[in-house]
């Protein structure tokens, strides 16, 4: 909360996050979510403190995307995952994204009530955000928030609702995407086969306690992955009911994906996607056309210096696009 009249100091907040001061996180996110012009300048200063150049490398957190249809058991799973990570001594930040009402612009952010964690534990941070007007799942400030928190926390989770499209945008923002599948619901399977969705890094089948339907779903997903030539993608079956099962397998699966990853490459991709997303938010489709379309814009970004931070990449896009009327 910023009391009226006192602008927060973005650079200072950034420096505190870099020093892994977790108490700086709430104020940092307030700033990154703000659209007020002075706040935007401070937000850029904040992120400037956390660029690979400033950090001397990529932020050390594992940034994980968890996405799936409503009712698939994401929040319960997340509660179990958070407990497992905490048991390993790792700090966890969760960015929970809920849909926005198109009619009123308001949103009910109910995830906080659904994700269980020890309320005395300073090592867990949960922030709920509304997806805003953009389709595709991510709130405007979520990418920036994930980048900022990745410098201070050991694990950063972006949780979104949806299937088929949502995970595409999440994939751009994280190191590892896990898609949650409810037993006996066909959508993920259909979307996978039809190529509507990209192949996730990990597939998680919830409600293993149901027995047969869960096993059948695991089998179907494995078969679909084989036919797509993606045998390497792990399919993990979990139950979040007491006693939970499969959570350690999932933690291990996420870990292995991250260990095998070209992290600088993936993060560079994330920053480029972020810059394009910010550019789009500011200049819209007309701006994109001025750059010669999405593919052309991506090609241009691919040619930029790999060390550039988001603000510089966005500025480069803006400099390339002729001034809009």
């Amino acid at each position, binding site marked *: *909360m910023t009391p009226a009249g006192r602008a927060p100091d973005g650079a200072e907040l950034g420096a505190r996050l870099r020093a892994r001061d977790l108490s700086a996180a709430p104020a940092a996110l307030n700033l990154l979510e703000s659209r007020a012009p002075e706040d935007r300048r401070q937000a850029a200063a904040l992120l400037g403190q956390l660029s690979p150049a400033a950090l001397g490398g990529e932020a050390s957190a594992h940034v994980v995307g968890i996405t799936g249809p409503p009712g698939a058991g994401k929040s319960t799973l997340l509660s179990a995952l958070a407990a497992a990570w905490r048991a390993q001594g790792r700090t966890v930040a969760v960015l929970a994204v809920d849909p926005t009402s198109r009619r009123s612009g308001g949103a009910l952010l109910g995830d906080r009530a659904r994700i269980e964690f020890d309320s005395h534990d300073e090592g867990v941070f949960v922030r709920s955000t509304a997806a805003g007007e953009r389709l595709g799942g991510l709130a405007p400030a979520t990418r920036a928030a994930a980048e900022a928190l990745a410098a201070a926390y050991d694990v950063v989770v972006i949780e979104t609702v949806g299937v088929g499209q949502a995970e595409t945008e999440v994939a751009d923002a994280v190191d590892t995407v896990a898609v949650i599948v409810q037993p006996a619901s066909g959508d993920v399977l259909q979307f996978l086969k039809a190529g509507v969705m990209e192949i996730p890094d990990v597939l998680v089948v919830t409600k293993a306690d149901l027995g047969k339907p869960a096993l059948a779903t695991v089998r179907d997903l494995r078969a679909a992955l084989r036919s797509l030539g993606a045998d390497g993608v792990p399919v993990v079956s979990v139950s979040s009911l007491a006693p939970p099962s499969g959570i350690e397998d999932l933690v291990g699966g996420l870990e292995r994906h991250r260990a095998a990853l070209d992290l600088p490459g993936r993060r560079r991709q994330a920053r480029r996607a972020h810059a394009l997303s910010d550019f789009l938010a500011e200049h819209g489709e007309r701006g994109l056309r001025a750059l010669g379309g999405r593919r052309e814009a991506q090609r241009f970004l691919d040619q930029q210096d790999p060390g550039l931070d988001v603000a510089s990449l966005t500025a480069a896009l803006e400099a390339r696009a002729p001034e809009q009327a």
Partner: protein
Amino acid sequence: MSEQPSPHLPEPDRPWLMRTYAGHSNAKASNELYRRNLAKGQTGLSVAFDLPTQTGYDPDHELARGEVGKVGVSVAHRGDMATLMDGIPLDQMNTSMTINATAAWLLALYIVAAEEHEVDQQALQGTTQNDIIKEFLARGTYAFPPAPSMRLTADMVAYTVEHVPRWNPINICSYHLQEAGATPVQEIAYALSNAIAVLDAVRERVSEDRMGRVFARISFFVNAGVRFVEEHAKLRAMATLWEELGRERYGVSDPTHLRFRYGVQVNSLGLTESQPENNVQRIVLEALAVTMGRNARARAIQLPAWNEALGLPRPWDQQWSLRIQQVLAFETDVLEYADIFEGSRVMDALVQELIEGSRAEMEVVVDHGGAVEAVPYMKAALVDSHRERVRRIESGEQVVVGQNRFTETEPSPLGGDGEVQVQVVDPAIEAEQVEALARWRSGRDGQAVRSALAALARVAEGEENIMPATIAAARAGATTGEWAQTLRDVFGEYRAPTGVGEASGAPDTEELDELRDEVARVSEALGRRIKLLVGKPGLDGHSNGAEQIAVRARDAGIEVVYEGIRLTPGQIARSAVQEGVHVIGLSILSGSHMNLIPDVITALGDAGAQVPIVVGGIIPEADAEALGESGVAAVYTPKDFDLTRIVRDIVALVAERHGVTAQA
């Protein structure tokens, strides 16, 4: 000779059981109250437990703070139960206990207290409410996840049918569904679907030839609103559907087993804070709904008090309600006739309408996989119905005399705003109970308690009936919190769905549209959309008010973090900081606001957050002033029924605190 049978009964019917939902502070004070009530002509007991007892926490638990002895009596071990029932003949008394998640435990304590009075469990009569599905839907005092909760219920039914044969192990509650906004059709359909879930679970635990007796032990706890003709039809419809269910689904044929038996507490939702004296006639009419037709008459009645919307009623307020029952039973002629609606075309058609509507809605529940699986669906449907009810009152379509129409009033000799007296629980009680508990723990055989709890844990992990191990733990001197924690460790914890995420939006009105513009304007000035945290501190699970505010704020364009129930002040402060909200809205109906709200303010201060707080609930005027002095920005009570106005106030509050100037 006339062909008409005589309208007169040869003998007037015996009156229903008359009870008063009562209990506060400690077992000793409540025992005195019970004895006084019985002396005044009350014929059964209805025990109100405090929220820690209902949710399975000892008085010294962090979550119990502010709630000990507040909405009912604190019962932490068999010693408390013995004191509570001291001098009351348990072999003759009919005791109803409003207890759900911890029902098995409280029944065990009751059985052990009876043992100490040399009364065998075979002789005990009464009811444990024990309806967990409605706790997930409406009342919030659950402790364990749905599946193990249903197992506890089924265990109790199986146990009592054999060993406590005159006990009603479960009272399926449609009462709280109506309080949460259910229409008559929803009330019937969800209550019966719930009964099916329970009976199906019990069927797996008893032999087939026992099902008739099991069916006969299931009773209902219903509600009656002021539309008393339709409410009476509702009960006739339930009786018909219940009998049909027994015959067709469970193969019950004995007519005495098929009878629909219910107790009732009439409607509190419709009681108003403004001109509270009008509640007396509402209560009378509602009592008529459940007594006037012999074929669907209540077995037991308890009536709310006229001043419930203002605070906890005093013994005198409750006496007034008991006297209503006594006038109805002993002065009027209601008990002298055969069923007065038999053969009424209008009544029959009304009943048929409700039966058809209920059958259709029960099908929907089946499509969702039965009552347990359908909890999220039913919850969202109730939130929707309640929203519609609030809208009709706001718009004046539904008349509430003295609240949205005929609001002029002479000065009331019963006391005006802030002068109506209510019951105040001595704040010293909590500390006394904590001390008494420490003495109890040090005076018992610790080793015996540990081994009893270990045995309980083993039974919980397996398939065996939970009751014998529970009774053994009660005898050994275990506490309510220890029993519940042992089961929490095995079963896990649970948070029920909130229903708010799925609730449909309010219809657009000009007023709401203007408010959206204002939200957009203030949000723009703030730099991000107004964000509001809504939650309920303490153990009070009555979440309707909080849910309705959350939904309306969303409809006004606000981003609402809905935190749900059972939050500690520390949790609220932490959430407010982590979420970066501009304002906090807290709802408390249990009367513990004077403890919990200042604690939230302190916790926020400790966290270095300057976030304004508004509070809603049943809050007496004097308390509202005190809260204002301690830093609460606004207090809303049941008389503030215009939700859009409350949300507009909240937006103005955020604007003011952030120096956003009012619109020109």
